């Protein structure tokens, strides 16, 4: 699979490394080259400097041929916007978006985006752990 990942933070870097190790064609985008230090030396994919809400940057990352796009920056709104560009402009078959704010996540789920809220997921895990 060809996968474009936006945001090379801890989750983005780790996800890229895992997918790359499994033989997928991974391109990771970040606005700051320094963040690519998180990628392991064994990483075979492409690391590009660019902003995922910019169509040109997405094109350079090969979004037009991508099978999947994942938005993992620190900004909920940036993730939402990039995911919608990938889905509605470039018609990427699988688009996943991280949204910290659970209320915003709920809204964009109803609007047809596939979203995850780490806030809601982690709170649930902790609740389960504490109540068990």
């Amino acid at each position: 699979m060809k996968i474009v990942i936006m945001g090379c933070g801890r989750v983005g870097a780790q996800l890229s490394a895992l997918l790359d190790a499994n033989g997928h064609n991974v391109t990771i985008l970040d606005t700051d080259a320094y963040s690519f230090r998180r990628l392991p030396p064994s990483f075979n994919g492409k690391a590009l400097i660019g902003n995922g809400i910019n169509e040109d940057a997405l094109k350079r990352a090969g979004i037009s041929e991508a099978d999947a796009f994942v938005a993992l920056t620190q900004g909920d709104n940036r993730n939402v916007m990039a995911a919608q560009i990938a889905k509605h402009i470039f018609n990427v078959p699988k688009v996943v978006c991280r949204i910290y704010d659970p209320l915003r996540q709920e809204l964009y789920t109803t609007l047809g985006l596939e979203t995850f809220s780490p806030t809601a997921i982690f709170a649930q895990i902790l609740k389960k752990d504490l109540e068990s």
Partner: protein
Amino acid sequence: MYIIVVGAGRLGYYLIKALLDQGHEVLAIEKRANICDNITSEMGSCCIRGDGCETATLAEVGTNRADMLIAVTGDDEDNLVACQVAKHKFHVPRTIARIRNPRHEKLFKKLGVDVTVSTTNIILEHIEKELPTHLLTHLLNIEDKGLEIVEIKIPPNAITIGKAIKELSLPPESILSLIIRKAHKPIIPKASTIIRAEDQIVAVTTPDSEDALRTILRGR
């Protein structure tokens, strides 16, 4: 009208002022506490501190009864989300977003934002007008019809000068609608109207025919 303004930076500040002067009920949402305080002390309690992209904040300010939401923060993504939340969660009839990147216009429209205002484009158009080398200026876009209204100045060396309009092979979707001449009343061009140097021609065209129209009128 009840109007919510998201972002009270420099643009937001003057917008709030103007809307209040026009007698509207205005509420601004601003993240930065100091800006919020300044507006409140100057214009009364019309600014609350918060994130205008958050459902909770928008619920608190009664967005469901708002007639309009205008998002004028400095970031396109924030303006998009504020408008989308207002539209889809609170059913605000009219949402307006400021955009920095002119290429985001189509995307925003597609995603349900009613109106986009590209500050970059507005400034560019004004600058274009002042540049003597630019013979074609954009006056207005009629987006849903794919048309635009442009102004073309006929330079003194154009070879179209002295020709009648019917002699020009204009692109099919283009119509010359008005000619403004120095020391004359504006005239509606007819097939027999002769083009003169320094004419300002207002025309309707499409983005695709724009270049052809410019070339034909300049006569090169």
